[in-house]
């Protein structure tokens, strides 16, 4: 059992778990099936942690394991690579999936079939982060996609089927363009692995010229569709708002980040990739701002959170794009990439927490509209929560996303502003921070006590069902992770930097001092500006503008129009730059 076999454990253990779950579903009646399902999930989500911590020391020392599956020769086989980046994405994936699955014990879809598809999705996450072969990336993204279509549709809400249908159609079309891009690169280089393609393109005159640039932009556009960057985010709000709470936590936390880091592997090796990274970075910064503005306008709580995921993804992609443009071997690039991954991880934690807490509250209260719902704290209290766990966890999540000092949101946003120093992206992100604060004050209004006493006590008949213990456990777990990663931020960022640098260990820490006056001052400005913006927004004209933004015309072919224009823009940018 040497090292090169163990790296496949994060992919294979969830698969073994899903096999067990399917066997339990086929062979046993409900009682036996539940027992097997729990053991399957224990194997699928529990054991990989042991493997990850076993691999950590060797990853920290920068060892990279790259091998051909089935050790075939001749460059025909599928090549796999396990390094710091893959370890980090696995860590992110398993932590959020574990917390989300515990949540589904309380509320949300159950059953061995659901757990099996959930485990297959986790296995696909681990495989996508490790693959260094273009067609294998296609298959992994398809497995990821089909698992998430089924999981979104498992919430049995009518709107969820529409969201799953449009997500399916758009990413199936994007994957066809991925295949066309793959054809272009295979025709030029005769190989499917990233090294083969990169070496093939270097030999060709002008680096493969027009065909290579356009094929690369096709592939990048198809993967960017799943990352919901600026023009291509149309499918995300419905999908994340209408999926079951645990699934939207996994979707927002992990599923829109893994393709981004899988794309990193392509863009680092292939010379033209730098230009794609730069353009996606610019698009990311724009997304951060636009996402927050639309989020501010939303009525439905989960849709507000979904648009926030888009804006936070904008933060991550802007830092990631600048890192790819600067090149990962340079110190600046490394700092940017570390800041980007830090924010990706912290965002997964607090966004997952927010989705779970808001989901529980709106389920209990039966009302999802931010303007109508009030006094959720009392509803939660009546719902059997002696100690207000959900309220406390919501506060942790909200303060984290608003970048309040002790919590992890503050640390990652400080890292981002440190990495960007004073470039124009930093001001975009700063403005987006203000918008975030305003929208989360608006969201927290659902917990404010009832002002109008005439609000009839909720009809006696509908006693809100109890808040299940497992819901509280998953929320507390995520809240603790948020607080801990906030406090130990500088040490975690050092570990992330070492893992990403694969060998060249840079000694200086990312944010020299996290709580420098300059950072604290910036936070104070953000909070005050946020409150001011919130007050402006709740005025009469403010509401009119917001409702204008909210019901802007959105239709099915709009998704495809934005996809084709985004791809065309990327191709133009590549041709112009080369």
């Amino acid at each position, binding site marked *: 059992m040497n090292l090169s*076999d163990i790296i*496949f454990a994060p992919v*294979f253990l969830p*698969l*073994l778990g899903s*096999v067990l779950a*399917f*066997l339990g*579903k*086929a*062979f046993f009646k*409900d009682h036996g099936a539940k027992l097997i399902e729990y053991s399957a999930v224990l194997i699928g989500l529990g054991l990989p942690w042991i493997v990850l911590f076993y691999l950590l020391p060797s990853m920290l020392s920068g060892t990279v394991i790259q*091998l051909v*599956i*089935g*050790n075939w*020769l*001749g*460059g*025909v*086989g*599928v090549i*796999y690579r396990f390094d710091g980046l893959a370890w980090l994405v696995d860590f992110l994936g398993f932590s959020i999936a574990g917390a989300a699955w515990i949540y589904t014990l309380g509320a949300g879809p159950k059953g061995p*079939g659901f757990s099996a*598809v959930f485990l*297959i999705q986790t*296995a*696909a996450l681990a495989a996508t982060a490790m693959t260094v072969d273009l*067609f*294998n990336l296609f*298959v*992994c993204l*398809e*497995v990821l996609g*089909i*698992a998430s*279509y*089924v999981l979104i*549709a*498992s919430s049995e809400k009518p709107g969820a089927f529409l969201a799953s249908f449009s997500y399916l159609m758009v990413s199936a079309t994007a994957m066809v363009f991925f295949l*066309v*891009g793959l*054809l272009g690169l295979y*025709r*030029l280089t*005769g*190989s499917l692995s990233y090294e083969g393609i990169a070496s093939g393109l270097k030999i060709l005159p002008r680096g493969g010229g027009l*065909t290579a640039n*356009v094929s690369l*932009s*096709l592939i990048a556009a198809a993967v960017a569709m799943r990352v919901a960057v600026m023009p291509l985010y149309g499918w995300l709000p419905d999908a994340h708002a209408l999926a079951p709470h645990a699934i939207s936590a996994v979707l927002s936390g992990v599923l829109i980040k893994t393709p981004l880091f899988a794309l990193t592997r392509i863009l680092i090796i292939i010379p033209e990739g730098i230009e794609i990274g730069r353009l996606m970075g610019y698009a990311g910064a724009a997304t951060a701002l636009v996402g927050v503005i639309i989020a501010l306008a939303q009525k439905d709580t989960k849709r507000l959170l979904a648009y926030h995921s888009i804006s936070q993804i904008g933060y991550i992609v802007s830092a990631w794009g600048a890192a790819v443009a600067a090149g990962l071997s340079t110190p600046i690039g490394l700092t940017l990439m570390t800041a980007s991954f830090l924010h990706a991880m912290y965002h997964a934690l607090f966004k997952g927490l927010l989705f779970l807490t808001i989901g529980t509250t709106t389920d209990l209260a039966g009302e999802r509209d931010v303007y109508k719902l009030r006094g959720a704290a009392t509803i939660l209290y009546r719902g059997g929560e002696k100690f207000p766990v959900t309220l406390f966890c919501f506060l942790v999540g909200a303060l984290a996303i608003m970048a309040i000092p002790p919590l992890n949101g503050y640390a990652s946003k400080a890292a981002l502003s440190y990495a960007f120093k004073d470039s124009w992206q930093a001001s975009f992100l700063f403005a987006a921070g203000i918008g975030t604060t305003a929208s989360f004050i608006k969201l927290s209004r659902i917990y404010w006590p009832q002002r109008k006493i005439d609000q009839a006590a909720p009809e006696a008949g509908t006693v809100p069902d109890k808040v299940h213990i497992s819901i509280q456990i998953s929320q507390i777990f995520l809240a603790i992770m948020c607080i801990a990663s906030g406090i130990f931020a500088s040490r975690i960022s050092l570990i992330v930097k070492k893992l990403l640098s694969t060998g060249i260990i840079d000694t200086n820490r990312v944010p020299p001092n996290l709580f420098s006056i300059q950072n604290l001052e910036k936070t104070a400005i953000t909070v005050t500006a946020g409150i001011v913006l919130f007050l402006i927004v709740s005025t009469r004209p403010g509401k009119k503008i917001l409702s204008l933004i909210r019901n802007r015309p959105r239709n099915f*072919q*709009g998704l*495809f*129009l934005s996809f*084709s*224009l985004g*791809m*065309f823009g990327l*191709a133009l940018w590549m041709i112009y730059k080369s």
Partner: protein
Amino acid sequence: MKKKKYSIFFIFQIVLSLTAVLAVLLPVFFSRVSWPDLARNYLEYNGLKESGARNLVSSIYLGYRAFDTLGETIVLLVAVSGTISIISHSGLSLAKGFGEEKSKKQTYNSISGFNRTELLDVVTGKLGPIVLIFGLYLMLFGHLSPGGGFQGGVVVASGIVFMALGSKTDSSTWLQEAGVLAKIEATGFLFLILASLSGIPGGFGFFGNPLSGTEASPVIYIIILNTIIGLKVGAGIGFMCIAMLGKVE
């Protein structure tokens, strides 16, 4: 196509996205670079030696790039179980015993809601076994003649559907039972995972051929994989198609 009240904005959207797509596709479709024969030359000479399969496509498909095939079987598995759970949650009365609820075991009588025609009985009833045999042939000889796990599995599935359609009386063969097909599919998936892991103890690594040490020709590993995938795909798609033939109220 009769032009209806398509708004100008709608037509503008369509034309814009079509031209953008056309502009992006032209360089890839019309690049004058000749197709690389790098991989073809390598496989032509040592494809047969290394993987032992005469049919190069199945040597790639189950030997060199076996991990893609594993991903593909998982996609199929998720699609089948997802489709069944989406349909059965809608309250549609599936063919007996196919619904989520584990109804008590009872004989599976013919699918009602069909007007039985003589043609249907003769064609499907008699053709069922023949199609099944052809499917098994495709599966087992996948490495010599064109065919393989997937194609064989799908043909076996259509054989199962033929027999389910053709059985007039209550003489339902065990093959059409919902439980049996689900069991075959689950065990097939288990054996596939075990087969792909079987290389690790021998030190040949993940998806390594456990028999490559011994003098047995490596093609046996491909035959085993072919049959496992064939049974799994056949049971899975058969399960889905029979469930779909259920009565619609």
